[in-house]
């Protein structure tokens, strides 16, 4: 009888064994556009954007316009590891900023990616 109880207790204790994992990594440029910046359509120049944010991840021309595209990738993973149930969640956030300039290098429009409510 004692052995049965011991077995039962051992099983219950084992079922409570748990662990957790957590990691994150970033790649791409620093998302300085999330800091207070004063970019204004029609007056800010491409040089001012470069000074404020550094070199863009990509450059593209559309007709006579030029696009500076900035990207920062943030990956976080969290996990709960139990004996009978495990769950891991990995979220990749692509934080982006895009600036469109005219032929004279003056800002026509700019935009930042919308972040999910949880990551804002």
């Amino acid at each position, binding site marked *: 009888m004692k052995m049965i109880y011991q077995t039962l207790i051992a099983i219950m204790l084992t079922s409570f064994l748990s662990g957790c994992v957590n990691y994150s990594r970033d790649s791409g440029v620093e998302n300085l556009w999330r800091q207070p910046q004063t970019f204004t359509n029609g007056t800010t120049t491409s040089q001012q954007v470069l000074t404020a944010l550094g070199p863009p*991840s990509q450059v593209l021309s559309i007709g006579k316009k030029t696009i500076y595209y900035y990207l920062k990738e943030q990956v976080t993973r969290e996990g709960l590891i139990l004996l009978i149930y495990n769950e891991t969640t990995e979220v990749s956030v692509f934080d*982006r900023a895009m600036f469109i300039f005219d032929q004279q290098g003056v800002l026509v429009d700019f935009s930042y990616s919308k972040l999910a409510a949880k990551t804002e």
Partner: protein
Amino acid sequence: MLKRLILLQVISFICLLMLTSCSVIKRQYGHVETVPAFSPKDYHQVLTKMGAPDSIAVLNDAFIFAYHSVAIDEPQFGLAIPSFDIFKFTLGSATAVHHYHFYAFSLQGNVINLQTNHWQSALGDSSSIGLIFVVEETVDLASFEVRRAANLWGERLLFDTNLIEFSFEEIILAKRLDLIGQDY
């Protein structure tokens, strides 16, 4: 004696339950803002509502903004071998839910075409054998884990122009169709 037998049966049942386990692996790539349906006239309105796009493509007389997010759920069911339960056999399958917004503009910036779509696709199923304390991935999702093209773009510009297939100047000057931004 009967009591003992019942107890043994209960313990055996609990042990059987313990031999099985399940895991849920969730992944989220990107985020597409949920907005009520709207009819933009130009790219300025799209940028205001949707933010910076995931990808931009340039054609001869048009350009495209694409917004794309993928949510992957991979539930798994594991079985352990009695008396050898340090190893676990796992069956898993993955399903992806996509949200995609597509906006095409003329070079003047006016909307030519737009389309939004949401769909679900099966990414496959598989099995694995692993340690019971480890959550193994049973579906190959390597294509989602490669470095983003945007983060490789600068490096590729440094390639020797005599060795590469085409010059990147053609892409920068929109002489050749290419997609910038995310590539999943």
